[in-house]
């Protein structure tokens, strides 16, 4: 068969594509269990850390997660945990960032007067810029951030850059060089606070 003939070219392309795609499919299948377990573990860890429940090992995560109560209210799933007489709630959130959907966990106290914590589960923001939403310094700003008049504020643009939150005033510092992502977080979190307030705030 001529190497530059059409038949050889087609057969060669077919075989080579089939072979490599097959190997990829195998690799994907082989690791899908691990990937899934990683994702589930990451989700449970995110819920625990958002609710400020400390954990050390993966086994601990499992036990602690089982102790969390799951409530379905008005079609919205809430996670409820009581520690030291205080009840806190958490909820998964998702909203659009700059490039794709940002998903995570937001946790608040019973009165929705203070954020307990946030965690980011997945995002497609620019690494090194908007991708820093998942960095500890950004997330830690929300620990104990006061909710003022049902809202918080994430700074963006020229007002961002101090690197510190004003917890009493409910103002978190946005990410330098990632105004759109900071703005998205502001919109997403405030939207979630409204849901918390509406469903949980009205029931007592």
């Amino acid at each position, binding site marked *: 068969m001529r*190497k*530059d003939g059409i038949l*050889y*070219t087609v057969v*060669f*392309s077919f075989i*080579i*594509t089939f072979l*490599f795609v097959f*190997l*990829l499919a195998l*690799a*994907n299948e082989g*690791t899908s269990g*691990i*990937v899934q377990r*990683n*994702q589930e573990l*990451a989700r449970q860890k995110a819920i625990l850390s958002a609710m400020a429940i400390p954990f050390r090992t993966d086994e601990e995560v499992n036990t602690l997660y089982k102790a969390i109560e799951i409530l379905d209210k008005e079609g919205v799933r809430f996670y409820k945990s009581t520690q030291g007489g205080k009840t806190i709630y958490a909820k998964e959130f998702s909203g659009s960032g700059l*490039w794709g959907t940002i998903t995570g966990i937001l946790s608040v106290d019973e009165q929705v007067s203070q954020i307990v914590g946030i965690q980011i589960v*997945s*995002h*497609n*923001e*620019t*690494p*090194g*810029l908007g*991708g820093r939403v*998942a960095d500890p310094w950004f997330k830690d700003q929300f620990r104990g951030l006061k909710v003022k008049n049902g809202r918080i504020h994430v700074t963006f643009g020229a007002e961002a*850059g101090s690197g510190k939150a004003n917890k009493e005033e409910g103002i978190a510092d946005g990410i*330098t*060089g990632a105004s759109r992502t900071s703005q998205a977080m502001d919109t997403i979190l405030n939207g979630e606070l409204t849901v918390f307030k509406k469903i949980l705030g009205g029931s007592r």
Partner: protein
Amino acid sequence: MTAKDLKKISRENLWFNNPIFIQILGICSTLAVTNLLTNTLIMTLGVTFTAAFSNLTIAFMKDWIPRKVRMIVQVLIISFYVIIVDILLRAFLPEISKSLGPYVGLIITNCILMGRAEAFAQSNPPIPAFWDGLTSGIGYMWVLMAIAFVREFLGFGTLFGFPVAPAWFPQWTIMVMAPSAFFLVAILLWIAKNRMTGGKA
């Protein structure tokens, strides 16, 4: 192919024909991922791995590849290794996979991979081709790490995420953003060219 030839290849790829300095390839990722050292290191390791193994594979198969579909086959092999890297990261290093996000997939479009496949692997035996891919990747890596070092230090006051700058140190916002990489790449190019030519244009 002797040890001397291999040494020549590495000298070329690391300095005299450096992918960034001379071939001006892979500039897009140089601008995009170099504001944090950790991301830069993982990304360039991915590029190095892919360049080495795609070169090796292409060099092995080159006699069977019809000329007409040669580039398509090269892209196929490159994407194969990139997706393997992505799958491995997702399964075994989920944290890093998360922080790199879409950039792993974008290794496919890194011009160095295509460049080396077409310029070297297509016409050389497997072992030198592997070595060429590996050293090209390292040539790319050290330049990017140098840029990331400056950008992370001046932009965030940290190195590999550890704070090293004193508290009063002002963070240069521009260093965090892509434009600063333009200046730094240009300055580095200028210095490197100057050294190579001994100041003569």
